[in-house]
């Protein structure tokens, strides 16, 4: 039997190997691929689409604690982040800050608002 102490390390090793395999295969498969080739441009498009799909999924169908914030709040925060980003001539820090602040404030108002309502009804 495997020592209980070693179990997390075994899982971490599996995680490290499966993560590195994708990167390793990437170097291997890139071979003599040229930047000016149609294949390179197609692969770039596929990669951009894949990452956009991942990001959209992280916002709309998050796993973990973010799932506890309502979808409306997440979408509102993402929209405000995009709006502030474009309105400030693409200032990344301001865009990210706007998204963060919106989500924190909206979820806070939601919870404290319902607390207030509950208190008023008492």
């Amino acid at each position, binding site marked *: 039997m495997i020592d209980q102490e070693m179990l*997390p*390390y*075994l899982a*971490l*090793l599996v*995680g*490290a190997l*499966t*993560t590195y395999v*994708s*990167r*390793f*295969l*990437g*170097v291997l498969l*890139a071979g*003599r*691929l040229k*930047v000016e080739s149609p294949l390179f*441009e*197609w*692969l*770039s*498009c*596929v*990669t*951009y*689409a*894949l*990452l*956009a*799909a*991942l*990001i*959209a*999924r992280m916002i*709309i*169908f*998050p*796993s*973990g*604690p*973010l799932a*506890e*914030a309502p979808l409306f709040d997440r979408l509102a925060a*993402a929209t405000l*982040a*995009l709006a502030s*980003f*474009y309105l400030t001539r*693409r200032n*990344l*820090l301001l*865009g*990210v800050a706007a*998204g*963060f602040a919106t*989500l*924190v404030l909206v*979820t806070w108002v939601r919870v404290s608002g319902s607390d207030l309502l509950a208190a008023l009804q008492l």
Partner: protein
Amino acid sequence: MAARQGRSLFRDEHFWHGVQRGVGVPLIVLSASFLGFGALIRESNLQLIHGIVSTMTGWALPGQVALVELYAVGAPLAVIALAVWLTNARLLPMTVTLMPYFNEAGTPRWKLYIACHWIAVTGWAEAMRRFPAMPPEGRYPFFIGMSLVLWSSCILATGIGYYIAGLVPFHVSLGLVFLNPIYFMLVFASDLANRGRAMALLLGAVAGPALHVVVPDWSLLIAGLTAGTLGYLIGRRWP
């Protein structure tokens, strides 16, 4: 050129240029995200060292989160392996599309097998945007400089996150987890100069969540292939 090749990485101006690009907004956002990962480690009853080892050896946040969450519920190793591999499969095409930029400078293969360990969305997006205008021989040191800054600050943040877990209010920790997708979204929103890639981003953002409802496990790969191919074709037809 011969003198240049013999120069150490730390004396290369491109290396320090990369370090400069890493420090700033990317560092703030990534570190904040890894604070969340450190907190997750503690909440999953794992030890500090497990979080540190994870960030050092398997640096790619979505896969790390999947690993910890599955481990915490006692999933078998084979399930963990498949889930982490699927979650991080995006790294394969990301690596393939970054390599040709290094090949233009004739960077030795063994160096690329090491450098690929640091390929992750933040550095990749920055590299894809800057490499075309950068002298080929400066790309490798730039990438290493930027990645080392980001990677080491993530390791540090994992540790800090472990210790501050439970100290910040719930709403703030929600906001911290939200930083990562929002930041990625804005990074790509600022990279829309190429028609094909811009269309691929837009279509992918729609296809990803839509397919997730139907085929959760394979949605990312299918969305990437279909939306990417469509975007590519649109870019070729209407450049």
